[in-house]
Each structure stands twice: as structure tokens, then as C-alpha cells.
């Protein structure tokens, strides 16, 4: 490989990657005796020390079950928990903190809507998704279809990996679509979908729109009002936050209309054996003891992301992705999957004659973590005519050295096999 070649792009200098990396303890680890090169942030991001510490500190110094506790520890913990709701609302520019529902992850958030909003849908109505959905935004709708007779439609993508907007428009034409549920960024192709346009077209056809922001919310600033969304979901562990915590945002009028999903403590107003009435939004949707400490951790993660700022994050990731695309183009036999108009920090690729599994294992032996397989997007794989890909995905701590290590090792892997 020609390392003398002058690269056309270099990452923006707005983000001090080394300083960022220093905040992630795990990045100092070695794997198989090599420095740990983590290129699987799309599956789950690593956690900065402030997130880890915020959780440990809560459990060390200020913890009790929340709501209804009339004592200091409980009140303080409740306040901290509810303050994160406000933070998340600001993070998404949601009109009100009462529109923020905490879930385990994005998957549960989508299932909540599929169950709760879904129970209001009737046969004859349809849900419209796309060909590039993660299973999390596919299976819940399939299950709804099988439960309730609602139709499930799939909008096609172009060969480049963009949503086919004309075909999408045609799917909306008969007015039967009640809900468009679509990814805001593909976890396989990196495609950032034209959310505003998708929403406008959906609304014009009388449909609501839910965006699966699991990937998107990590890479750029999200404004649910500018996007024109009705529902938006994301998941804490991809946003440098803890596992076990995700978010559903929904417009208040919709949330108020929807029946609760899970039943239990903390979601009721009054209970008799005969009949119960529900608490107000958002508590109606949060049954049982929530992931209290994880919510505080999510708050710390959002605070951390906001200090770095999405301008710097986006510039860094865009530059890094461009750098990676260039570097990977030099690897013999390597084929990047898709060429979407707008791409976040996710690149899937195949390599002639070398199977993704073999690539992943051999990269790992060199300390480099990538994902290989179908990426929970089997129908998309079929659409692309592929069985599996290797995927490198980037985070705020990803450096050009990481990319260099990836590209160089790929060349050696290829030599090893061919």
C-alpha cells in the first residue's frame, strides 16, 4: 500500500481526539497484546469516565427509589431523575419534558409504540417502513400486523442505499398508511435519511411518523420539531451512556391518547380491583422501578456530548469517514457497500474472496474490533444481494490511527488469503 500518497482529506482540527480518548479508560486496554482499536461504536459506544463515575457516585452517595419517597435521599434522587427528563427534552428540542419516556433501549421504545399506538389501529390501515430497517424497527411491526391485521408496507431503497423517494410517495398515495416508521440513519449503510421530507410527505398523506434515531442521535444534533417528527427513539448505550436506558419522545397529544403499555406501580392514578385509572404522561408509560442509576448516567452522557458539541462531533466524524473511505479504497478487492447522499460514521464493506467472519477474527487478533454479519438487518442484506458484510463504525474517540491500522491490517489479511 502506498503510504506516501497525499490524502485529499484530513479530519477537522476542531476536536482534540487525543484529549477525548484520554477520557475513555477502556481505550488504554490491550487486546491480544495489541492496543485496542475499537471500530464497533455503531453496535455500542464506549463510556467516558464521567458517565461511569456518575453512576458509581449515585450508588455511593445518593440513591433511593424515586417518586413517593418522602425522605431526603428519595427526593434528591427523584429530582435528579426528573432533571434528566428535562435534559433529554432539551437534547431533542422537544416541546416538553413530559413528552420524554424512559425505556430500556430503542427496541423497547419502538415496541411501546407498536403496542400502544398499534392497539388504536384498524385493519385497512398500514404501517410503512423501509428496506433498510434494523430488526428493531421491523419485527415489532410484523408482530402488530400478525396480531391486528394492519398491513405492513416496505418502501424500497435505491442501489446507492438511499430511500427511493418516488416509490415512497407512491406507497402513501392511497391514504391507508397510518404510521411511517423509518430509520433516521442506517446502521449498515450509514445513510442519513431526509427526515424532514419523509415527515412532510407522511403528514400530507395523513400519516404519523416515527424515526428510529438509534444511530442518528449520536452523530448530529437532533431537533424533533425541525424534523417534523411525531415520535423519535434513541438508545443510551450508543450515545456514550449506560446500557439499560433508552428514550421515546412522542407528541403529547398522541401520548395522551395512547393506552399504557406495561402495567404496575408508578403508572396509575387510582386502583381498584374493578378498574384502574392512569397517571398523566409520561408516568403512564413508566411502570415499575425505572432504571434510575442508568438514567442519571444518561444525563451525564448527554452533558458530556453537549460540552464537546455536535458541531465538533459531526465535523470530526465526517472528516474521519471521508478519510476512511479514501483509505479503504486503496485496499485491494475491497468494496464499500452503498454510496448514500449523506452518510454518518458507518462503513460496511466486502472483500472479494475473504469472508466477513474471517476478516473480523483476523482483525481481532490484531486488536481491531469490527462487526461482521447481517447487522440485524437481514432483509436489507437480501436487497443488497449480500450474505454478510464487515462494518467499521466510528465514534467521537476514533482517530485516523485507528483507520490506518484497519486499512493496513486489511491489506495483510487479503494477502494472507489470496
Amino acid at each position: 500500500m502506498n503510504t506516501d500518497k497525499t490524502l485529499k482529506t484530513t479530519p477537522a482540527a476542531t476536536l482534540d481526539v487525543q484529549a477525548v480518548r484520554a477520557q475513555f479508560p477502556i481505550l488504554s486496554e490491550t487486546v491480544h497484546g495489541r492496543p485496542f482499536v475499537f471500530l464497533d461504536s455503531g453496535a455500542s459506544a464506549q463510556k467516558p469516565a464521567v458517565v461511569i463515575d456518575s453512576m458509581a457516585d449515585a450508588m455511593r452517595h445518593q440513591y433511593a427509589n424515586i417518586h413517593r419517597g418522602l425522605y431526603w435521599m428519595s427526593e434528591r434522587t427523584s429530582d435528579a431523575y426528573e432533571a434528566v427528563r428535562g435534559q433529554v427534552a432539551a437534547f431533542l428540542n422537544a416541546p416538553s419534558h413530559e413528552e420524554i419516556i424512559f425505556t430500556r433501549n430503542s427496541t423497547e421504545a419502538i415496541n411501546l409504540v407498536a403496542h400502544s399506538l398499534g392497539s388504536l389501529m384498524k385493519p385497512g390501515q398500514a404501517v410503512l417502513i423501509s428496506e433498510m430497517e434494523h430488526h428493531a424497527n421491523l419485527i415489532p411491526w410484523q408482530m402488530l400486523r400478525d396480531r391486528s391485521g394492519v398491513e405492513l408496507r416496505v418502501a424500497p431503497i435505491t442501489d446507492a442505499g438511499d430511500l427511493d423517494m418516488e416509490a415512497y410517495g407512491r406507497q402513501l398515495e392511497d391514504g391507508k398508511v397510518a404510521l411511517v416508521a423509518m430509520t433516521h440513519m442506517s446502521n449498515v449503510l450509514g445513510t442519513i435519511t431526509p427526515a424532514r421530507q419523509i415527515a412532510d410527505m407522511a403528514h400530507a398523506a395523513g400519516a404519523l411518523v416515527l424515526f428510529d434515531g438509534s444511530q442518528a442521535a449520536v452523530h448530529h444534533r437532533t431537533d424533533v420539531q425541525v424534523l417534523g417528527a411525531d415520535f423519535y427513539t434513541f438508545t443510551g448505550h450508543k450515545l456514550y451512556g449506560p446500557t439499560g436506558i433508552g428514550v421515546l419522545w412522542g407528541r403529547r397529544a398522541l401520548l395522551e391518547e395512547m393506552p399504557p403499555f406495561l402495567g404496575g406501580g408508578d403508572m396509575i392514578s387510582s386502583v381498584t380491583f374493578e378498574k384502574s385509572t392512569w397517571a398523566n404522561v409520561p408516568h403512564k408509560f413508566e411502570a415499575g422501578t425505572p432504571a434510575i442509576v442508568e438514567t442519571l448516567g444518561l444525563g451525564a452522557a448527554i452533558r458530556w456530548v453537549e460540552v464537546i458539541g455536535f458541531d465538533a462531533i459531526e465535523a470530526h466524524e465526517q472528516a474521519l469517514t471521508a478519510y476512511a473511505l479514501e483509505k479503504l479504497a486503496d485496499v485491494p478487492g475491497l468494496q464499500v457497500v452503498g454510496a448514500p447522499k449523506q452518510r454518518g460514521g458507518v462503513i460496511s464493506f466486502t472483500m472479494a474472496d475473504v469472508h466477513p467472519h474471517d476478516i473480523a477474527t483476523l482483525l481481532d487478533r490484531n486488536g481491531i474490533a469490527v462487526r461482521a454479519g447481517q447487522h440485524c438487518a437481514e432483509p436489507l442484506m437480501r436487497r443488497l444481494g449480500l450474505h454478510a458484510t464487515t462494518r467499521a463504525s466510528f465514534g467521537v474517540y476514533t482517530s485516523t490511527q485507528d483507520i490506518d491500522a484497519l486499512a493496513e491490517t486489511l491489506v495483510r489479511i487479503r494477502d494472507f488469503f489470496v
Partner: protein
Amino acid sequence: MSDAAQDLYDLQIVERARNPRYAGDLPEANLSGEGRNPLCGDRTRLDIALQGYHISQIRHRTRGCALCTAAADMLAERLSGCSVEEAQAVGVRFSAALVTQDAIEQVESPPEGTPSLGVMQPLTAVRFHKARIRCVELPWVALKEALTHVRV
């Protein structure tokens, strides 16, 4: 590649994957079975010519990684000429060798009377790569399906 990678990607395995000796169709097959891994889309199909209780020939068509392809090809070589009973015994022995990272002893000095792994031996390095065990097991899933209706 590093030493540990060499361990798993033994030259015999890589060579097999590159140039399998038992790939292709077997028109005279009277049994066949398929193994699929829905998580990665990998698939291997075995065609078997059975004469009485003896496997006279095996061919495979594999769409998979190097480990899966080599495992299918080595299975075909090892089991050709075996009785169904022997084939199953090799399978049991192979499974045992994959189960645990402490199985080295068992691999190197198996209990008396157990059949040798023979050409399949290098595949046992996969026991240190838990997530890849499925890959070398896939041809055995296909074998099991092929033999479902054979009563020994």
C-alpha cells in the same frame, strides 16, 4: 498475522478453504442435508451417497467463511468410507473437542476406542474462538439433517 491467528488460520485450513477438494454436486447422492446460520447467512449443503450403512462419497456446496468451508471439506474427507455409526462417533468426538478451552487434553489423548479426528484436527483450534464455533459446526448440522431418517 499474529501467532494466535496462525493457530486458527492454520495453513491447512486456509489452503482447504481456498481449494476445497470435495466441493461440488454428487449426482449419485441418495441423502442430503443443509446447515444454515441465520445470523450471518452462511450455508452448507452436503450430498451423500450411502451404500447400506456405509458412506461411499460426500460432496458439499458451501457459502461461508474459511473455517466453515474447510470444515465441510475436511468432514467430507474424514467421513468418506465410514459407516454411519463411525461418522456419528467422529461427530461426538469433534463436539467434545470444541466444548471447552480445557479440552486440549481430551483432544490430544482421547479416551481409548474413540475415533481420531484425522484431517479435521486443525479445526479444534477454534475452541479458543467461541463465537466461531458455529462456523465449523455448520457442516455437522447438515450431516445430522441428512442422516435423520437413517436408523442404525
